[in-house]
């Protein structure tokens, strides 16, 4: 798939709506093994991203839309997730404007997260949702399959012991809880499915 600016705008809109709706759940997940701010952080960031995208106007390219959203996320989210998600969107934007290809863009976003944060699959972070999702899209080019992979990946964090981020301070006590960033990644990718379908429809 080659998402255009309209799909990207719809994605940001849908993502902002889903994060707002799930804000308290995400924060609660973060209370259990982190510092209880993830939902609030991301909600603040996504509202700023949506505003930035709306301020861009109709002539912006798909890459410009994601770049603006990423920049706003970095500027307003704070915490670990702000630079990680913001960096991912900016990398996706650059990739989209170069190749136009969603598979390449998703891979670029995932690489950015892994490079910035240094986390690998199994460390109980957003990477546990992101990496399998990107791989699924690379293999199937099916967004539904991709979103399911993200969800499964997020759920896999339940039994993991955290090795990155704040949850790693808890040692064994981090086991038995979902990682909030993995949960929000699943949600962001689910938003992409909806956006792509709605725009096509």
């Amino acid at each position: 798939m080659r998402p255009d600016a309209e799909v990207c705008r719809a994605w940001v809109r849908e993502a902002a709506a889903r994060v707002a709706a799930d804000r308290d759940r995400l924060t609660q997940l973060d209370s259990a093994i982190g510092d209880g701010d993830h939902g609030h952080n991301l909600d603040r960031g996504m509202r700023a991203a949506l505003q930035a995208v709306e301020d861009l106007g109709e002539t912006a390219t798909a890459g410009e839309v994601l770049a603006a959203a990423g920049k706003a996320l970095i500027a307003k989210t704070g915490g670990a997730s702000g630079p990680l998600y913001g960096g991912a969107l900016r990398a996706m934007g650059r990739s989209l404007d170069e190749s136009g290809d969603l598979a390449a863009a998703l891979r670029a976003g995932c690489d950015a997260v892994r490079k910035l944060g240094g986390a690998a699959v199994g460390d109980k972070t957003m990477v546990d949702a992101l990496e399998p999702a990107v791989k699924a899209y690379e293999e199937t080019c099916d967004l539904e399959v991709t979103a399911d992979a993200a969800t499964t990946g997020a759920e896999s964090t339940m039994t993991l012991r955290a090795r990155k981020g704040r949850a790693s301070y808890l040692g064994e006590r981090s086991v038995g809880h979902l990682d909030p960033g993995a949960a929000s990644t699943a949600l962001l990718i689910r938003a992409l499915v909806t956006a792509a379908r709605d725009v096509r429809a």
Partner: protein
Amino acid sequence: MKKVINAPEDVVPDALRGLAAAHPGLRVDAEGRFAVRGDAPVRGKVALVSGGGSGHEPLHTGFVGPGMLDAACPGEVFTSPVPDQILAATLAVNGGTGVLHLVKNYTGDVLNFQLAAELAADEGVAVESVLIDDDVAVEDSTHTAGRRGTGATVFAEKIAGALAEERAGLPAVAAVAREVNERSRSFGVALSAATVPATGRPGFDLPDDQVELGVGIHGEPGRERAPLAPAAELVDRALTAIEADLPLSGDLLVMVNGMGGTPLAELYVAFGEVARRLRGRATIARSLVGNYVTSLDMTGFSITVCRLTPELLRLWDAPVETPALRWGR
């Protein structure tokens, strides 16, 4: 939730406006969310910038002023600041000889300061960063995000700030901050959790007869729960953890820090136990007892110990004039 606030989302700028009103010696940008010393930028002086989530006051805003920080950037409550505000503060205090970022070791703080440093470099400002990671409750291994930065931040800000005030260069100022960090260790004990304004609920529930050992400063639970015990025993647990990593001998700088909701009398009780345990083995050359690195209304305390050298002691004693630390002039 009961708090003296207007609205949860306004706590940070509202508190900054109060800070500005109370301390005419500071210049505060409540919208941009940073505070700088009134005479910034000080030409020819290395500038010190720190920051982190709000809710730890007086850290960091209370340590801005001559002899300590040039700027502080408070993020949302318990949330790292964003690169824009760190950059703005960095540019506002840059005196032409470089800027030192003092960063507590949390993934969010590290990433946001890193982005800000890159942006500052783009503007031609030399930035060096020193990571503070003194909390022995966290294993420092490849299997964790590394040790957290807590109480040693106060020591590093004070001592590096004093050296910068003497017009030492950026490498020397960064080196002394690293030295303080390497010679310092902390351990925290919580009796109850903090309530963040945005969520209105305590970060964790702790039964009436339990404490969290090895607790952080962001409302995250600690490494272990243990039964509530007399002060002597809680202090012993903390010092034992610290001592496993840092020999407690020679001249020490010791802080017994309140988490925010702990009466000062209790902190003095704890300090008395620290002094008793160290008697005959080490000298408490200098001390701080009070609320310095808090977690909103959390109750409990942390202990931070720094093994002083004569030079570190000299710099600790140097004049400082900030809202929360003030002596020597």
